[in-house]
């Protein structure tokens, strides 16, 4: 248990330095995915989530794809998103947030399932907190009984994550966090929240878009947002957020 806490504390330290969103790696060069990602490259492995599985592929030799693990989820539980955070994988599913550890990168091991009502939910992690959006989706079978909200989950005890905040949303999708800035695709808006105190998030700004936002990546002061009309980027610093480009 102590080891877990230590690992998390270290994770927090690492995150405060550089990339806490998307992929991390040793010697290999990988990129950064958004919170809606279903693929994640970490070191020599590619992790893929889909409706039924968490699959692990060894891609150390770029001319081969070798499956090393395949975990089957419950029939009624579709896994939708994957967010790597140092040595852990956070999986968003219709019934909750799964945590797997990567002590053996070829075979992820189940740590915990944080359950909630049936919803669709991407997750991002920074330091010892996870941020999860739960969304209803009325035109699919899987998510039509859910709620629309943001939950903040304390991961200090990785075997007993705890809800430390719930915020009502319109219809949230992807989200991203960078330092004190939390960005949420919510309905037709980009919602910017101040996450200086993870226990008391406050709204900074709601930016209305000419389309429905889907996925975001917040990295090094630049927010990249895909939405139904194209791709937007914003520059943000302590107290300002400014649109800098749009392509269609």
């Amino acid at each position, binding site marked *: 248990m102590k080891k877990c806490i230590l690992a998390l504390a270290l994770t927090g330290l690492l995150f405060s330095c550089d990339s806490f969103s998307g992929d991390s790696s040793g010697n290999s060069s990988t990129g950064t*995915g958004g919170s*809606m*990602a279903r693929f*994640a490259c970490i070191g020599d492995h590619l992790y893929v989530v889909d409706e039924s599985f968490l699959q692990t592929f060894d891609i150390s030799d770029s001319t081969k*794809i070798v499956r090393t693990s395949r975990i089957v989820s419950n029939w009624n539980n579709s896994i939708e998103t994957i967010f790597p955070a140092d040595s852990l994988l956070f999986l968003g599913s219709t019934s909750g947030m799964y945590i797997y550890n990567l002590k053996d990168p070829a075979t992820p091991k189940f740590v915990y399932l944080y359950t909630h009502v049936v919803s669709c939910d991407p997750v991002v992690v920074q330091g010892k907190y996870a941020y999860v959006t739960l969304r209803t989706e009325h035109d699919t079978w899987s998510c039509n009984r859910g709620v629309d909200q943001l939950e903040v989950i304390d991961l200090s005890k990785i075997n007993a994550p705890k809800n430390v905040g719930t915020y009502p949303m319109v219809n949230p999708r992807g989200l991203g966090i960078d330092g004190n800035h939390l960005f949420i695709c919510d309905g037709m808006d980009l919602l910017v929240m101040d996450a200086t105190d993870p226990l008391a998030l406050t709204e900074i700004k709601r930016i209305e878009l000419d389309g429905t936002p889907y996925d975001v990546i917040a990295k090094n002061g630049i927010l990249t947002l895909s939405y139904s009309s*194209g791709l937007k*980027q914003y520059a943000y610093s302590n107290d300002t957020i400014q649109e800098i480009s749009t392509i269609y």
Partner: protein
Amino acid sequence: MKKLLLLFSILLFSGFSYNGVEYIPMLMDRTELETSVQLVSSALPIRNPGRIYIYQNWLLLVEQYKGIHLIDNADPANPVRRGFLRVPGCQSMAVRNGVLYVDNAVDLVGFQFDLNTMQGQELVRSRKALPEINSPDGYVPWEFSRANRPANTEIVGWINQNADV
């Protein structure tokens, strides 16, 4: 009570049949699928954007079921669409050491590329490593199940019949 039940079943049934015709799959022959991943050097307009991925100075943006926009983002204030990687059935991607891993319908493909010269080639393909692309509403018409549709075809996307294309 009986009337209520009848009304309920009519609603339920009409709901089902509505869903049944709402989405129909796009099919592709397997031999065609296996040569379908191609770099197109000219940029295409963004129509149905999906997931995003950042790799070095590049932004990769999924065009749902069609492929990946390759966007030069050296200057985020002036991103430039440089090209398009055609990948039928595409929804997700990740990059490691210059190799892009992408879902080409049920196949997982590794595609090596040089974004600066817009050259690339398929390096590896793991056939049927991934499940079929599910319909957006979760309903697959029976005639398009693997057993009932033409042999050696794969679902590479879904079309909403009721939406304007």
